[in-house]
């Protein structure tokens, strides 16, 4: 996600020409994070679309100088988190667990046993994420599922960088505990 700043110059020069490339380069990170935050593939896809449409409209209004200095990943996620918040407020839907959304295979698992283990662990960690507080889950997802830097998360959430760091630290500890529990 950090590499998204590489798109700034092109977006500032010719938005219409550069935007499709930008969408293709950023959509997996955006969707992957949204999927963990919304826990629903359809909601995540809708939120990703909404985010890009708002991003495009915002970029059309910005002066080129502003686009050239934009911290793109943090900025895009500011929009995405707003979209998710609005959606949650609108639907008040009880989130569902995404146990069946996990992969059938992962690329580098050597044997069927390891494979099953890996899959079981993924199911656990996905479930454990749901035990975190809203902000804790958000910070952990943005840091470790999406791969944003602490600075980018601070920008996206408007919260201090040190708070994010301790959120993530506490979140990971809590995840580890939950996963340890389920092994007992």
């Amino acid at each position: 996600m950090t590499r998204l700043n590489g798109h700034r110059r092109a977006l500032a020069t010719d938005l219409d020409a550069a935007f499709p490339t930008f969408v293709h380069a950023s959509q997996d990170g955006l969707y992957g994070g949204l999927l963990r935050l919304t826990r629903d593939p359809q909601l995540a896809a809708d939120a990703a679309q909404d985010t890009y449409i708002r991003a495009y409209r915002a970029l059309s209004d910005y002066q080129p100088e502003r686009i050239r200095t934009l911290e793109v990943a943090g900025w895009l996620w500011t929009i995405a988190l707003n979209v998710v918040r609005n959606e949650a407020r609108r639907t008040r839907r009880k989130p569902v667990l995404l146990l069946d959304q996990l992969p059938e295979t992962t690329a580098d698992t050597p044997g069927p046993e390891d494979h099953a283990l890996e899959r079981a662990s993924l199911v656990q960690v996905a479930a454990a994420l749901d035990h975190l507080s809203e902000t804790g889950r958000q910070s952990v997802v943005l840091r470790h599922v999406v791969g944003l830097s602490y600075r980018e998360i601070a920008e996206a959430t408007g919260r201090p960088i040190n708070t994010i760091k301790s959120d993530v630290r506490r979140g990971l500890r809590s995840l580890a505990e939950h996963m340890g529990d389920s092994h007992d």
Partner: protein
Amino acid sequence: MTDLTELLADLARPAPATVAPAVLVETGVADVFATFDGPSGSLTVAANPRGVSAVAPTTHEFAAEFADRFQRPAYPTDRLPGRLHGRVERALDSGRIGTLPIDLRTQTDFQRAVLSAVASIPPGEVRPYGWVARQVGKPRAVRAVGSAVGQNPIPVLVPCHRVVRSDGHVGAYRFGPTMKHQLLQAEGVDWAVLDEHADRRQSLLGSATTHIVCFPTCSHARRISERHQRWFANPHQASEAGFRPCRRCEPFDQ
């Protein structure tokens, strides 16, 4: 802890294939294509916010060929966005591109100049490659003009079917000679008669009363009564006989 962060990274999933098209179409950034009734059957026309970007005779494989040629995707739609759909319909009906916006960003300056000269050929008339070369100020670049015309991304709307061989024969077309014949026929050009004249080395038509010589399909030439018609094989022959070139169709420099 390392295991845990690796597991978290493995939770990421690629975006479904529907996200990018939905966004690009909604923002109007992507090329979309729709089907039109053209003069020689159905036509697929693609467009984006810059204007019309591509035309092809069928929908079959259109998206794949478009992506291959322009290195960006195009998505099917029922109607081109906004007023563009109606403007394309009117351009197809009238045979004139007028002020219809077109996207020639992948073309070189030379190719753009060639296409703009081609677009100025009125419906119902044809011009040889050499005429196009003179229009773009490169009278000797006939071969380069031929290849620029052959790569016209917006055929029919930019009427490269109205460009013929310098000896007057109707010649080849990217989508085959039959489609060229149909397009010319639809605008009232009798291509078979053109070929017959070319076979007899009759490429220019003059009037014995005005001593003005034209391309045979020029609207001025079509007013010449049969008994005043004088045919010439080339500009030299016409000049020798004391004829001057028509200022409308400019068959050669004076």
